[in-house]
């Protein structure tokens, strides 16, 4: 089917506004009489609070509130994905975190006191006047140490947060069949999202007594968390979404919401709360560090026969989303390969390090470093071409993952790999001391939530009397172009020009609930909800047009803002006329629809067996790097990213996801790390936490395949997270190729590379 709008690259609705600096981000809005929030945070990673004296701070002129744990009606934020997660895993996890620490702090940066004052300066001065007496406690900063029986306990329940297990076939027999076994341990660090816009928001109480928060968030449903903390009926708290200056999972958990809600509710006045860059670095969840021991066996002809792996992730001081991140790791631990005998044990552990939680790829990127590292190591051991080894073992339609889930459509893995590799072109000649390394990394990443969450999204599409359309859907736009995609789908179905479709508002109470912009789910979920609504609306418009044009509904087309009779272009009427006629006939011109993702029972936590996710996105990175053998410095020279997008909804946005994911991964691979000294960050600022610039980015080519096999609108799959998944593995494999030695630890700093080459004097 030919599309008019879908698959093209029309200018995004927000593009001009953004380049002109005009959008009102959550931290930009100011209200009359507004107070400024300030949070006092723990400087210690593990300590008891012996004494907390706020009298001097409260006495300062201009200070409206100095709040401590005792002022929080219910001092407990629950870390649950909306959607019945707790019930699906009954009792598995007790994941709560205080809004303000009471008598104990468990990580550096944990909020202790919340202040509101008439100016930011007074709020800062009040923060200096708060007296907190801490007694440092022994902490634990390494997840392996934390599992020892005599380790200091982060929580009374112990340091073991959650384990998942995957079992398929017979691991002993599997390794007995193996002619070659390779074993490596892979390590990844804490990394930060480093979005342009730090966590921010403003709150007020409206005329009906409803607490309204306008916040930079990926999850409007956090209004419920605020209501629970304040012990208010859920309907009394409303979250208004704004455009985000980046989220990447870092604005999936609660950030400013509860603190802001508390300050507004206690003072009765508007309050603005904006985290500084330093607060953002120490205050929000990081990507989990992993230690991954992988042992992989293959027969002489390169057939994978066994995988034995152990994954340990550092959850930091609280659970947040760690168990679910770990589950993504478990499901993706085998890579997109047929492996008949599998034993994987995955564990996430409390420490006094920063809280780790959601970050683009959600646990499926660390495992890719390991499984793709293993594939190149096996290829070397078998003297096989690494691409041929992969192709021999790639999952095909009908094959089952180690979880037992059979793939219902062709994953096109081999094609993404061949196209990515071909895209690298001729190998660049190496001139000593430069060494050239090339590699691929194939990947698979779920899009959409875990099946048992029974995910659902709603959307409303309506016609205006002028024949234009309006979309209402509470899907936060994190900068990926979510809003534009919803408009494009509507324009496609209703035969409208894109600029005749407007998406209004992203609001927990005034727009239909669409769920979170996380888990690469918005195109699948809200996209399908909008598609369903637009199609239903189209049915009504076609009915009205058929009556007006005296034609059969099946012969009516909607195109260019008009309804016309197929094959008779002179018989056409503007949609504005059709809309008025429809209203006159009592036909609906506003439609509310929903989309329910297919659901399945919970997987078995002891064997991992079951259907964890509805579908996956498959793709490959091919990369060429240049390593300076005298300095150890690695430069990415050329990168090709090839994915099966299912169907491209907005081409430029899709390409942007691929490019952004690749560069974000380059930073993770080569330079990024939250440097910690017993849980205390040594680099909570951009002077010493470096991310790639345009000068660090390689030449990037993107190749998008369209199988039409996705569950999203028109057969689309999700790309947001998958686009990043193969990045770190591709870089590590390419550097390994350049060095002739396996690189298994991130970041691959120049100094580490030089040490691997034996170049650094002791």
């Amino acid at each position, binding site marked *: 089917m030919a599309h008019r709008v879908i698959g093209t690259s029309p200018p995004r609705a927000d593009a001009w506004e953004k380049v002109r600096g005009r959008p009102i981000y959550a931290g930009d809005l100011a209200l009359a009489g507004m107070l400024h929030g300030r949070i006092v945070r723990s400087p210690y990673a593990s300590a008891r609070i012996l004494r907390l004296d706020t009298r001097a701070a409260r006495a300062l002129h201009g200070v409206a509130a100095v709040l401590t744990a005792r002022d929080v009606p219910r001092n407990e934020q629950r870390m649950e994905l909306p959607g019945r997660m707790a019930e699906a895993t009954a009792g598995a996890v007790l994941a709560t975190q205080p809004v303000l620490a009471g008598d104990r702090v468990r990580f550096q940066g944990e909020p202790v006191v919340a202040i509101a004052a008439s100016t*930011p300066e007074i709020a800062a001065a009040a923060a200096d006047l708060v007296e907190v007496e801490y007694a440092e406690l022994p902490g634990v900063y390494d997840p392996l140490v934390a599992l020892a029986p005599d380790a200091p306990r982060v929580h009374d329940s112990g340091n073991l947060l959650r384990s998942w297990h995957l079992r398929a076939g017979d691991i002993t027999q599997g390794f007995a069949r193996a002619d070659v076994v390779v074993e490596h341990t892979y390590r990844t660090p804490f990394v930060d999202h480093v979005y342009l*816009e730090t966590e921010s928001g403003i709150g007020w109480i409206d005329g009906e007594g409803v607490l309204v928060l306008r916040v930079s968030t990926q999850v409007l449903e956090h209004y419920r968390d605020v209501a629970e903390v304040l012990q208010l009926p859920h309907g009394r708290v409303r979250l208004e979404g704004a455009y985000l200056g980046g989220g990447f999972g870092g604005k999936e958990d609660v950030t400013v919401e509860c603190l802001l809600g508390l300050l507004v509710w206690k003072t009765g006045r508007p309050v603005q709360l*904006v985290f500084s860059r330093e607060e953002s670095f120490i205050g929000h969840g990081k990507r989990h560090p992993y230690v991954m021991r992988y042992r992989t066996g293959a027969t002489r002809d390169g057939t994978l026969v066994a995988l034995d792996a152990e994954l340990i992730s550092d959850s930091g001081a609280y659970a947040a989303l760690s168990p679910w991140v770990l589950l993504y790791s478990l499901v993706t631990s085998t890579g997109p390969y047929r492996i008949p005998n599998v034993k994987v044990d995955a564990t996430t552990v409390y420490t006094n390090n920063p809280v780790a939680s959601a970050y683009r790829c959600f646990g499926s990127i660390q495992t890719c470093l390991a499984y793709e590292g293993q594939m190149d190591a096996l290829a070397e051991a078998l003297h096989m071409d690494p691409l041929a080894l992969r192709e021999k073992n790639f999952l095909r339609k009908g094959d089952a993952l180690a979880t037992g889930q059979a793939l219902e459509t062709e994953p096109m893995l081999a094609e993404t790999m061949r196209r990515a590799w071909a895209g690298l072109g001729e190998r660049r000649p190496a001139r000593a001391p430069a060494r050239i390394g090339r590699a691929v990394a194939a990947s698979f990443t779920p899009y959409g939530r875990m099946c048992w969450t029974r995910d659902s999204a709603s959307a409303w599409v309506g016609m205006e009397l002028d024949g234009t359309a309006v979309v209402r859907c509470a899907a936060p736009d994190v900068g990926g172009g979510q809003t534009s995609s919803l408009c494009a789908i509507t324009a496609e179905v209703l035969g409208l020009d894109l600029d005749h479709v407007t998406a209004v508002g992203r609001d927990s109470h005034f727009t239909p609930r669409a769920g979170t912009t996380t888990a690469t789910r918005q195109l699948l979920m809200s996209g399908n909800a909008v598609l369903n609504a637009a199609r239903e609306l189209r049915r009504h418009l076609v009915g009205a047009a058929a009556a007006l044009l005296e034609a059969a509904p099946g012969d009516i087309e909607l195109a260019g803002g008009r309804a016309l009779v197929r094959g008779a272009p002179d018989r056409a009427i503007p949609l504005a006329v059709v809309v008025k006629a429809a209203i006159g006939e009592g036909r609906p011109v506003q439609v509310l629809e929903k989309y329910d993702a297919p659901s399945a029972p919970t997987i078995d936590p002891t064997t991992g067996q079951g259907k964890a996710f509805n579908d996956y996105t498959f793709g490959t990175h091919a990369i060429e790097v240049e390593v300076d053998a005298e300095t150890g410095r690695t430069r990415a020279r050329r990168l090709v990213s090839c994915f099966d997008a299912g169907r491209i909804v907005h081409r430029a946005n899709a390409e942007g996801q691929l490019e952004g994911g690749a560069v974000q991964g380059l930073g993770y691979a080569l330079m990024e790390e939250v440097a910690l000294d017993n849980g205390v960050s040594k680099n909570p600022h951009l002077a010493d936490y470096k991310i790639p610039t345009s*000068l*660090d980015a390689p030449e990037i080519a993107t190749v998008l395949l369209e199988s039409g096999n996705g569950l999203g609108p028109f057969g689309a799959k999700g790309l947001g997270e998958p686009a990043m998944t193969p990045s770190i593995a591709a870089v590590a494999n390419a550097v390994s190729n350049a060095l002739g030695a396996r690189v298994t630890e991130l970041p691959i700093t*120049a100094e580490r590379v*030089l040490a691997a080459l034996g*170049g650094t*004097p002791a």
Partner: protein
Amino acid sequence: MSVRLHPFRLLEPESLTDAVDALGQLDGEARLVAGGTALVAMIRLGLLKPDRLVSLHRVPALGQIGVEGRSLELGAMATHADIERSRVVRDGWPLLAEAARRVATPAIRTSGTIGGNLAYAEAASDPAPALLCLDAEVRVVGRGGERVIPIASFFRGFYEAALEPGEIVTALRVPPPPAGARSGYVKFTSRSAEDKPLVGVAALIALDSSGRCADIRLGLGGAAPTPIRADGAERTLRGETLTDAAAHAAADAAAREADPLSDLMGSASYRREMIRVWVRRLLVALRDGTR
């Protein structure tokens, strides 16, 4: 987004005399501010909590770039962007223009000044190694009047310049490089391209008619607690032919005389090794005319 700074009073004197007086008042701590690129970051991090900032923006003629006699006269308030774009500097002191071009990012270069950069006395300064090679002189004014400090003795210690309390850097005097000299600056960053130099190497060589080093000067950033001249390395080359072996020996000498620190950019031993690599590479490239 609001940037929260420890509150201070901003003074904007319109003459150097007033600036010196403003700095010299005894109540609380005063700091000079020029471009603010280093100072504001330090206030934000809480490393400094000055009560007063004395801005030099309204003092006339502090940012001028010109030639007096044969020397470059560089006002302390000249920004890195001014220097990199100046025709006078590019033609007569290309090493300085090259180093200025490598400072941070365009936004910082447009704001940060050469006087502020030197007074900050950061080991990883980009312009400092170039100015060390060029034998610049630093002019300062204080209560006791004006004095001139050779740049080789301007950096006293870790983030410490040889400035007395209340003294203000007003200008640099940079003698012309020897006729026919070749020069270059290498900035090596170990993380992103937008970073301070892990090490910076500036070199100036003048070869005589038989290919021997008539003049050789090496300035190093990131190699010690302050920017330094690599005197030992220079000695190994003076009067010698710049063979590959000689470049190696000079690089080894530079690595030996370096006294680098460890930080998040890299360890001391890695820095020492990078000095060895980049001194050699730069010398060979200058000899061969490949840069």
